[in-house]
């Protein structure tokens, strides 16, 4: 560690210690020290991550590694309590439910598919889960493919249907828009032929663009036909439509990103430094 690094480190420590003390003074109350420490800690973590924008550095590395450790454990715990204890235990064992104090739902006359009591039916995932852990045993590692096969198979089936219905049938039938808006006679049509957002002309253009856009977009995705001639033209139109889409959603997203930064800065200014109300 170079001398400079040491100096910087010491300075930073001093700065945060100071801010802790000040914070504690400002907060007051019996938990002041604790509260102040936690806020200061959060602030340190915030700045440590932000320092990554300058370049990779020990403080970022520290924050990063800590983050990885905690978050990995976070989901393990949540998964354990909400799924194993919350969903599995009540279905398989009354005593365990008693132990974890969760309402036992598997008992009584509750029968499920194949007329298997839940208790037995829900042994399947346990078995599969254990098979998955077989990976840790070199000899029996191949057994772990069964649960994987189960997962992949099931969701291949479920997804096939879901997407077919929602992203597909529904989206197609949504393109069934009247290309010509309601016909009230020619004079009326001419009268309404304005570029105004509420004008008939715009409405018509919109429908037309949506329809052609979808078609050309699909043409762009053709894999087994050369994109030449009229087909190529259509696919070029398609890619343009896609580009507009991407530009639009990029532009739209910026908004969200700024909000996030606002959130963080507000934390720093208000909760830590206390320089804004």
């Amino acid at each position, binding site marked *: 560690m170079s001398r400079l690094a040491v100096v910087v480190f010491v300075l930073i420590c001093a700065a945060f210690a100071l801010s802790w003390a000040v914070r504690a003074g400002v907060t007051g109350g019996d938990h002041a020290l604790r509260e102040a420490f936690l806020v200061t800690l959060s602030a340190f973590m915030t700045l440590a991550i932000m320092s990554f924008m300058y370049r990779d550095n020990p403080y970022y590395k520290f924050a990063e590694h800590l*983050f990885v450790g905690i978050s990995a454990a976070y989901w393990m715990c949540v998964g354990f309590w909400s799924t194993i204890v919350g969903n599995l235990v009540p279905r398989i064992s009354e005593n365990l439910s008693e132990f974890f104090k969760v309402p036992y739902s598997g008992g009584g006359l509750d029968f499920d598919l194949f007329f298997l009591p839940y208790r037995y039916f829900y042994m399947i995932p346990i078995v599969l889960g254990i098979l998955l852990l077989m990976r840790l045993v070199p000899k029996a590692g191949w057994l772990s*493919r069964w649960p*994987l096969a189960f997962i992949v198979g099931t969701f291949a089936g479920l997804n096939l249907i879901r997407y077919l219905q929602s992203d597909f049938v529904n989206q197609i039938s949504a393109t069934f828009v009247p290309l010509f808006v309601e016909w009230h006679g020619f004079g009326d049509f001419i009268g309404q032929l304005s570029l105004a957002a509420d004008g008939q002309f715009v409405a018509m253009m919109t429908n037309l663009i949506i329809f052609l856009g979808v078609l050309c977009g699909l043409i762009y995705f053709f*894999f087994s036909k050369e994109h030449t001639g009229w087909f190529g033209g259509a696919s070029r139109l398609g890619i343009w439509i896609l580009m507009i889409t991407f530009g639009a959603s990029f532009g739209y997203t910026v908004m969200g990103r700024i909000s996030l930064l606002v959130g963080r800065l507000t934390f720093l200014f208000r909760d830590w430094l206390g320089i804004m109300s």
Partner: protein
Amino acid sequence: MRHKLKLVLVLVLCAWTTAAAQTDTVLIDPVSAAPVLPPPLPVTNLQAQDTDNDHGHAITLTWEKSADDGAGRNSVLAYEIFRWFPFQMDVVDALRKSVSETRDAVRAFRIDLPRAEHALRELREDPGKLRTLRFNVARPDDSTFQLTADYAIRALEDTIAFIREHGPILKNRIKPLQQDLEKALAELPQAYADYPRDGEWRSLGKALVGSTSYTNTGAKESTDKDFIPDYTDLYYRVEAITVDESIRSEAVTVGPVQSRGQWFHAGRVPVLGFVLMFFVFTLTFVQMAKKGANLYVRPLSGIEAVDDAIGRATEMGRPILYLLGLGDATQVSTIASFSVLGRVAKRVAEYQTSIIVPCYDPVVMAVAQEVVKSSYLDAGRSDDYKQESVFFVTNYQFAYVAAVNGIMLRERPATNIYMGKFMAESLLLAETGTLAGSIQIAGTDEIAQIPFFIVACDYTLIGEELYAASAYLGREPVLLGSLKAQDWAKVVIMAVALIGMLGTALGWPAFAQLLQVTG
């Protein structure tokens, strides 16, 4: 015997409640002062049939509006629907309740006993703990009452004694109660068959004025309180009611009707149609491909870049970073990414360069290890395979990003390949990659993220192209066949869209309705 008792009890209860109800209506009748209006005309043509496309346990009623609904005297406020309940249902219900209540009581005792004992010990040691006592004792409802330590101790002792005494008794009571419940359930069908003896009409709810149908959906678990048995005669009645609840049309009764489950969901035929279409297309073209019909596929720059990228990595002696994204193994995009990973890893093994695969999901990690390992085997370099090259980071989105960004700046991979489901982190990763000077190839079906990849990466596979990628890299005729099938599906879609559009343009909605998926 117990049944009879329960029955009597319940009957008395019902009698009392109905009586109470009647007196209530008289008391709080809002328009009793107003001139009493004549009862509205009843509904006509009341029909009841089993609800379609369900697993049974549901009945749908349909009727034609009362003449006074919206027309005529226009006095109808709503339609009240009744079903005939055999009293046996109450027996079942009562038993069900007592079973669950006993269970709860037993559980509560288990929780309270240790707490009480603990509190007792504390108090005995130091009566001053009374204020911090975490177990509140029964107090006499007397405002002047002052809680003293020894009162609390006595109260606690009583409680503990009570629990000790009654806990076991209650526990032993559960089993017989359950048996009774089963017996009572067994007698249900008979009870329903006895209509109209030993039963009464009970309101299920109201359908708003103007409505002409009502679906009575029950539970399928016989232990549930609104359980409707299948293949059992049920009877319904509908009354048109007015502002004044006590003025109502005479009841129209319908029945018997039975609920049953259907084996096929008729509302989903269009989906089935498409499923079949896909099966046929895929199978035919795969067969054609197997027979060796040569299938053209247009070049995808993103795919062709993969090979050069791997070559580049080899020259620079730097690793390749492959990210499978945030999807878990249930997402098809992740599975697509597996097969791309397989191809890439094979090349990597052949070129004898190294690959890093940090994973977001443990299951995905498991699969990825299998995939990479077998690719090395296929390339005949199984000994070059290091298991730690495919590892789990964490499945907390931004912790994962933080770690991967670190890897990018420290390992300096020559190429980053992002394939699969990506969320907000897409740009964080891609920008850092650019900073690290890596060639970047991305592919995702997450529409919101494609723009960021397009902006920050050298090549991007857009949506569907990701799914085609594995076929492209694999070059196996079978896979190319399925691509062909995909394209033909597109043709069908366009045709359908065109017809549908023309249909709506010419004011001929029949076709659009064909595609309506209900339920």
